[in-house]
């Protein structure tokens, strides 16, 4: 199942981006309104720098490839759209996210002698579990593992499962946080 630009926009909307301020300007500036997330190959468009630059995005995309189910395609474009849009709207949040990403990357370099994005998928998974990202409570002001769970794992899963495509993987079209209208709750199963 492909994540589309519309999914990224929906996830951003659920996160409050696009209501006003910088986020709206960011969304308005994006091109390629063909429903795809980023370029046709699913890679990111734009090279906006800020607290979350290309290096941080690489880590987040690499993490999303572990956190997202295998039947999801175009992860890079979706993550880029979401993270960039959110960073424009909430720069403080982006700075804290960049710190968490750096903590994850440092952990990978210390224990696996490579940046997180350069690890193969299985090693990334192992590193995340070794760091206890699977077990700790998310806390935006907590220890490294808690902040990685908050700003990396849960940030990415919040984006996915509050989007229609992510939720449809589970079987509902209008997930919590998505303004999907009042028709779907009345409908019976679609398949």
């Amino acid at each position, binding site marked *: 199942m492909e994540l589309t630009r519309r999914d990224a926009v929906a996830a951003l909307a659920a996160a409050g981006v696009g209501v006003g301020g910088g986020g709206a300007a960011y969304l308005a500036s994006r091109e390629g309104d063909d429903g795809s997330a980023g370029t046709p190959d699913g890679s990111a468009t734009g090279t906006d720098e800020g607290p979350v630059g290309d290096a941080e995005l690489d880590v987040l995309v690499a993490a999303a490839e572990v956190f997202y189910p295998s039947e999801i395609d175009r992860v890079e474009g979706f993550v880029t759209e979401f993270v960039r849009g959110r960073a424009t709207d909430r720069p403080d949040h982006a700075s804290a996210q960049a710190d968490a990403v750096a903590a994850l990357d440092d952990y990978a370099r210390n224990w696996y002698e490579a940046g997180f994005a350069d690890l193969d998928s299985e090693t990334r998974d192992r590193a995340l579990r070794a760091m206890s990202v699977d077990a700790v409570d998310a806390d935006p002001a907590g220890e490294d593992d808690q902040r990685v769970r908050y700003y990396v794992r849960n940030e990415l*899963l*919040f984006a996915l499962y509050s989007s229609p495509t992510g939720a449809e993987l589970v079987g509902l079209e209008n997930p919590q946080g998505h303004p999907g209208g009042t028709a779907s709750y009345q409908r019976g199963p679609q398949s």
Partner: protein
Amino acid sequence: MSGSQPTGAGAQSTATDPVDRSPSERVDVCVVGSGPAGSLVAHRLAERGHEVVVLEAGERFDESDRLERQERAIRPAHGPQSVWDMGGERDAYASTGERHYPLNVARVKGVGGSTLHWQGMVMRLHESDFSGTEAGAATESGAGTAPAWPIDYADLRPYYAEAEEALGVAGDADNPFAPPRDGPFPMAGFPPSHSDSIFAEACERLGVTMHSVPNARNSEPYDGDSACVGYGTCRPVCPSGAKYDATRHVAKAEEAGVRVVDRAPVQRLEHDGAGETVDAAVYATPDGETHRQEARSFVAACGGVETPRLLLLSRSETYPDGLANSSGAVGRYFMDHLFAGTGGVIDRRTRQNHVGFLTSECHQFYDDPAAGTDGPEGSVPAADADPSELGPIKLEFFNYAGPSPVEQALGSEQWGDDLLDSLRDSYGNSIAMGGLVGQSPRCENRIGLDTSTTDDHGNPVPAVHWSLDDRTRRTIERATEIQERILRELGAEITWQVGPDSTGPAYHHMGTTRMGTDPQESVVTPAGRTHDLSNLWVAGSSTFVTGGAMNPTLTIAALSLRTAEFLDEELRQN
């Protein structure tokens, strides 16, 4: 009319805080609290030409922050109190009864009050609730009658209609158990859910009647706000504004000239030398200053906990037990509704968690909770208990049974394909019923002051002394018995139940300044004025004599509109 202007005596705006919180010159009415009661009273009185100041303890939240608040509600790192910034020294409290009362998840302090986080269900009380013949009317010691209200349904009926217009209620007149009404709801009700249609099959076989739910939620654009867009987080936050909250009437009040001062917690009400009238509301401001707002009349509208607390904090030499408390009833007879629920799974897709509100209920067991049913293919057996030993029951059919996938994902220890498999296993087949059970007023359930703990201004914090009586426990058991019968008829495997031991409150604070005609037994008159002080009024659920089992806000609104009429008349005559 022109709005009341601040005097500029201190608490003036600064570069970082542009709000001038200095008191206005003596106004006609000072309202304490900006929830539905306070904002409706303020708006109505301003429309009638009166000069009104509203003092609100909490802050004025920025509407553009609502999606961020929604994210806090969904993401597990943020506790429920964080959504509306509750907690801390300002909101300290004590829970001193047999049952813990989680006060700070039960209320919001801010412009708009607890309607910022409410569910938005708006039913009228039944005629029997007012007459003292309600189900659950007996005292704990045995059969008897609950205290009757000094007004009846007919007195409140036109105000209920006004309240439905004011709040914007979407509903259908298909409830055969509802009290009489004079016209349709302002908006059409929300259609039933797919889940409702599954319940309907079982209920029809059992002779249980389902009907629609009146929602203070726009089923179409109404009064300048959009129709519901299905964010699914009605409680605790509606980002679209389709769910009514009292900021709507705060805005209307301000348009009519009312001055609303936020972050201005009232510390006490000061009376004149004779103890006959209130002179001023003494309030604090964020700069550490204290001010006096003078007015011809005062309305305490700060909810079922803070209203009695304010009266108790306002004790004086003349009134050593607290203001307006010659009856001793201030803070007493604290009531809430109790939750009863049963849920499980069935071998069909139930399509939960698309929206955050209910579309079907059953009020069949409200006036006669002991009665059984006799359906074409089955029945709900009558209760073993005597009817007088049970309180009213309102049954609800959930549209959000089982976990929300996004919340489950964020709280899980899994990720990737394993997480998706778990989400798929959890989502889809859940089904559940909830319900509210009425609690009889009992003197020992009360809001008092805990003098051992003080808030951020040095005032004793509220102490909630709350317990369950045997009647309420029996009624909860009866509610779960009915729920279980319906779910078993569906072939559900029951996986959870909330009964008398695990029940909790519905966060409806009622009864703590009850109305009545006898000053020895009650705090306010049927009009809402305190017996003891001629210019002090109370609006809100604290004036309820009984609570029934209906969500209270429509009755709060109706009573407030009615009280505003009496106060308007009083102001004109004097």
